[in-house]
């Protein structure tokens, strides 16, 4: 018998969130103490604590224009990816589903490659993200179109269609890469690894509306998701229009993931692992699981980004690499644990 401790987990998550944000603001090549960051945050919020600690103008500029947007992008994208992952896992009643599996990432990557080839990314900041977003939406629409039969979307068919569409878009991307200039391939590689580097307030502005909107809708649909997660037969028995709700939730999860991926490049494992971990801690009820996953995703992504900046002295490790390094062992552990049950 297992008890889920929602309140305790929430408190721990919020504390972890605050710690990780301060760490992220202080970590990096430009020297800033943890305590200075805390003081700066308190001053900004108008709380008269730690008034004796000063922050220089240069430090403030770094905090304001380099570290803050980077951290906020991390929070947003982490929350978006993890919540989408939780939604997709519930939607398919399959604990191994993640945003990548229905073709979002490969579609976005293809869109990004097209933008790089066309040179849109060097002329405009929003060109590449928009192109990536369109690629993701096209790929997911194709997946759903392939999987829909007589107004029904069977889960297994959808997952297989997702794999096939993913392969198609990866092949198209590879084809583009072979005809691309070397320096453009370099840009592609930089994008595909997924990073929070050089993210500015413009990126935050780009992502904040679609991601928060997506997350709000998901939270509102949590009760429906609970029913869907019981399986198609149960959902029908209590009178749910299964196809309609599957489509709505798929659309919302796609929009959120695509908005996240198009700002940061593809970052794996967050959407897969965080919902899993949170399900173990707070249980499968989405009214608790979704908020816990959001905060958990933010903490994990910003944490990975901070660690990536602290490990090497002169350089930094991209967050996409860090999530994979920290995520792979956990994923393997999950797989082995699932094997033990069956």
């Amino acid at each position, binding site marked *: *018998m297992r008890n889920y401790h929602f309140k305790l987990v929430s408190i721990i998550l919020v504390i972890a969130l605050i710690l990780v944000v301060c760490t992220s603001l202080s970590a990096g090549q430009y020297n800033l103490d943890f305590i200075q960051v805390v003081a700066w945050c308190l001053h900004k919020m108008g709380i008269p604590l730690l008034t004796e600690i000063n922050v220089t103008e240069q430090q403030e500029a770094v905090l304001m224009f380099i570290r803050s947007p980077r951290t906020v992008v991390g929070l947003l994208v982490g929350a978006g990816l993890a919540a989408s992952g939780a939604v997709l896992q519930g939607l398919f009643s399959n604990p191994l589903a993640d945003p990548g599996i229905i073709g979002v990432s490969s579609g976005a990557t293809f869109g990004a490659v097209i933008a790089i080839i066309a040179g849109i990314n060097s002329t405009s900041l929003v060109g590449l993200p928009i192109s990536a977003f369109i690629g993701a939406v096209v790929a997911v629409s194709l997946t759903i179109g392939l999987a829909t039969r007589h107004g029904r979307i069977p889960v297994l068919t959808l997952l297989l269609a997702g794999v096939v569409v993913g392969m198609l878009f990866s092949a198209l991307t590879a084809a583009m890469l072979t005809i691309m200039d070397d320096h453009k391939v370099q840009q592609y590689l930089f994008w595909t690894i997924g990073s929070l580097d050089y993210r500015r307030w413009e990126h935050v502005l780009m992502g904040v509306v679609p991601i928060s909107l997506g997350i709000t809708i998901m939270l509102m649909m949590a*009760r429906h998701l*609970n029913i869907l*997660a019981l399986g198609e037969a149960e959902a029908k028995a*209590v*009178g749910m*229009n299964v196809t309609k709700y599957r489509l709505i939730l798929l659309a919302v999860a796609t929009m959120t993931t695509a908005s996240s991926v198009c700002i940061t490049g593809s970052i794996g494992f967050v959407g897969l692992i965080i919902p899993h971990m949170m399900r173990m801690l707070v249980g499968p*009820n989405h009214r608790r699981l979704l908020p816990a996953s959001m905060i958990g995703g933010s903490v994990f992504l910003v944490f990975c980004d901070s660690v990536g900046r602290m490990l090497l002295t002169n350089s930094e490790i991209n967050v996409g690499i860090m999530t994979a390094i920290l995520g792979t062992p956990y994923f393997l552990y999950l797989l082995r644990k699932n094997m033990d049950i069956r």
Partner: protein
Amino acid sequence: MKKVISVNNITSGYDKHKIITDASFDINAGEFVGIIGKNGAGKSTMLKTLRGFLPVEKGSIKLFDRELSDYSQRDLAIQIAYLQQQVEMTFDYTARDMVMAGRYPYIKWWEQSSDRDLEIVEACMKYTGVTELADTPIKAMSGGQRQRVYLAKVLAQQTHVLFLDEPASGLDLFYQEEIFRFCREMCNYGKTVIMVVHELNLAARFCSRLMLLKEGTILADGCPDAVLKDNLLTEAYGVDICSLINKETGHRDIFTVPPPDDVDKKQLIATIIGNNKHDGRGANK
């Protein structure tokens, strides 16, 4: 008596594969109908068709004098609760989460569950005796406990009609009888229960009416004593079946009569058993 379901000459099945052919019957309020028949006779298909899960090729089904196809999915879920044969769950939902699912058709899409819903859920769990298990994941329960949770969920749906597909399979005798008693009690309160049953002895004791299916057609339909006849059962199940009243208990006993051993079988037995004496020392002589 009030007519609940009225079935007129229906044919249904999966895609092109017809399973139920030309079935007609009426079911009245307060009846406890057991659908019996051997494996593959179309019992579950009948139940799914009546619930509107399978398309009706021919004929019509009326629920409270209104065509079944005129109901929305949600309206149907308010009229009929359906407990499927095997509930397969991926995630570790607790009993309370599961029972709460029964309230789904009553809550508008933008609303959250109210205190009233919670009250009904608690009452249903108390009635089926799973209040202590409310926060336990369903996967951690025994088969009998699980079935009690599902019954609570079906109750929470507050429907007039209950459909149960083999709810007693694989359970201890105690739990089996409990489910039948539960259904009869519900019928006494005016609900209508239709159940797919394998346990003929229990069906004979508790159901008010039995419907015997053979290859998708209704072979017999009526009170248990009229349906549980040797010749009808023998025809439906394809083996010799004897049905008689036990003088000690007053209950009906139903059992198969094995055919006498013929020459072929004797030879087979000789081959299978061999003529070694089994004294625990194995085959080495």
